[in-house]
């Protein structure tokens, strides 16, 4: 479609199909590939207990240190546990803590960010100072500080990742709120006497949620990586629980890494593809919502 044709259609009447085309074009083929991969991994993670795969914690499920495409589809680790099954079960915890973490970060960070940006004054100063202090820790150090003295259950790890996300997310929410709080439709609502609660929920929240949508995906990728970092510090979920981070740590002991490197490489590959898909999809959504912002 050439430029001149596009102009005439827009002027004549807004063609829904043309808009749909534009939408698909902007998100692109890669976006749908990324989303499909994410869907596949999430589905495998959700359905892991019912999938026809080996028991991930069964020792000597196959011969120890068996290579890829041997008796076990993706080989076995030093204890003869099935690497493929462990990677799928690992997705449960990695995606789980990633998703719960970013959800917590967005709910809490978003709420205090909007409060700071809307109420300004002392509220803003106090919140901004706390946020600034939290940002003064390298994120992994902050996570370490929280998990170091707690029992590390699934929920504590997810909560830790969430707390780490609160500060940067609230910054974004605050900036977006300030930007929108000065716009005409918000002032109009204030003029006709709407209460703060109504303005925040009806006028500001929908607009702040748009950049947050892209952030959910990007942030989930960051959380998944952060779980891996914690695993290397020995601070991921305790006990028999399997996560990608813990599997990578398992496989990276010198002897295994040298002779049986797939034990580490299979979960690394799974994590890499997932994080890349999250980054890619997040980037596309951000670009897409940005475009809408300027076009209308």
């Amino acid at each position, binding site marked *: 479609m050439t430029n001149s044709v596009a102009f005439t259609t827009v002027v004549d009447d807004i063609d829904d199909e043309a808009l749909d085309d534009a939408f698909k074009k902007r998100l692109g083929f890669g976006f749908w590939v990324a989303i499909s991969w994410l869907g596949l991994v999430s589905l495998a993670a959700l359905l892991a207990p019912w999938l026809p795969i080996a028991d991930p914690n069964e020792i000597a499920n196959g011969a120890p240190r068996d290579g890829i495409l041997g008796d076990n589809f993706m080989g076995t680790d030093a204890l003869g546990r099935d690497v493929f099954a462990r990677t799928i079960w690992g997705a449960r915890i990695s995606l789980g803590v990633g998703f719960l973490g970013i959800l917590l970060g967005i709910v809490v960070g978003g709420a205090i960010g909007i409060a700071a940006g809307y109420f300004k004054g002392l509220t803003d100063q106090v919140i901004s*100072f706390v946020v600034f202090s939290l940002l003064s*820790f390298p994120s992994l150090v902050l996570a*370490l500080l929280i998990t170091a003295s707690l029992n590390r259950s699934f929920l504590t790890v997810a909560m830790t990742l969430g707390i780490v996300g609160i500060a940067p997310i609230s910054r974004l929410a605050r900036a977006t709120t300030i930007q929108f709080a000065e716009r005409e439709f918000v002032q109009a609502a204030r003029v006709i006497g709407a209460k703060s609660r109504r303005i925040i929920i009806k006028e500001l929240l929908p607009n702040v949620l748009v950049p947050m949508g892209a952030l959910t995906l990007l942030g989930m990728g960051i959380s998944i990586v952060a779980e891996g970092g914690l695993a*290397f510090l020995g601070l991921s979920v305790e006990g028999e629980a399997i996560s990608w981070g813990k599997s990578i740590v398992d496989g990276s002991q010198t002897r295994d890494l040298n002779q049986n490197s797939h034990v580490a490489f299979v979960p*690394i590959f799974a994590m890499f593809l997932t994080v890349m898909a999250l980054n890619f999809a997040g980037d596309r959504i951000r670009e897409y919502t940005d475009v809408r912002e300027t076009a209308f």
Partner: protein
Amino acid sequence: MARFIARRVVQLILVLLSVTFIAFGALNFLGDPLVNIVGPLAAIDYCDEVEAGLREDSYTSINNSRGDCEIIGEAKADFGLDKPVIQRYFTWLGNIITGDLGTSFQTQLPVSEIIAQKLPKSLMLMVMAQIIALAVAIPIGVYSAYRAGRAVDRATSVASFGLLSIPNFALGVIVLQFFALRNQWLPASFDDTSIGTRIHSLILPATVLGLGIAATYQRLLRTDLLTTLQEDFVHMARAKGMTDRHIMTRHALRPSLFSLITVFGVSTGALIGGSLVIEGIFSIPGIGSEIVTAVVRDDFPVVLGSVVVIATGFVVINFFVDLLYTWLDPRVRAS
């Protein structure tokens, strides 16, 4: 400028107070410091009765002729655990300022001594990583902006996107396997014999850390350069017949470095987190490895001391980056 710096210094002090309080508070509120000092004995809950003479003290502690409650009482008095947290915080803060970070429960060495011994290795790793990052990112960033949209630019865009998606520990494990174990081109662990062996054995881990930040730097530099290249003074220079190379390196590069300087502080944070993890993978006995061991052994003073040193360093670096940035770009000062 003097007033600006004075305000920033006040802010710096406030942030340092709050950062140390968060670190101290996190370990004191989330965990029971008594557990960290006396171990499982802390679970004993009948010491009040023993004190009142209603009950005999127990003697479960190994190679210790003193009663359990006696030990707990001493620990509480020694560490001031019977006082409120705020009061303990200020006592502790006073000690830190005079350079006393406490004593390790495990090794009985002063924490400041442990940190002084481990920190230089971590610093060396981080400095090397930053040098590698800049050495890789600046030429590639300049070239990809110069040839924007061409094959090299597209290839580097894909490569940096891939690099940003691969966690540093994953890259570390892959690099360790390929370059150190399978092919033994470079050492797999730290060698402390001389300065030469130290640099040699840090090449792999520093490259792993550096490449991750290089991707961020390259993207920012490319974007900024593309904006700068639209400026009139660039067209002017071109009209005067200057070579492309001269324009890129002498005219366009310097005004395009602002974003890169801004993220320098942020990337240092990523670098600190990254080196905590990478040190373990490449067996570097730095502060990261020390923290990992201390966490496993519940060595409370070592964890707290290391975290405080790291966080303070990070805050101070960001403070200087901020000043540098303001000095380079007077527009920031106005706002």
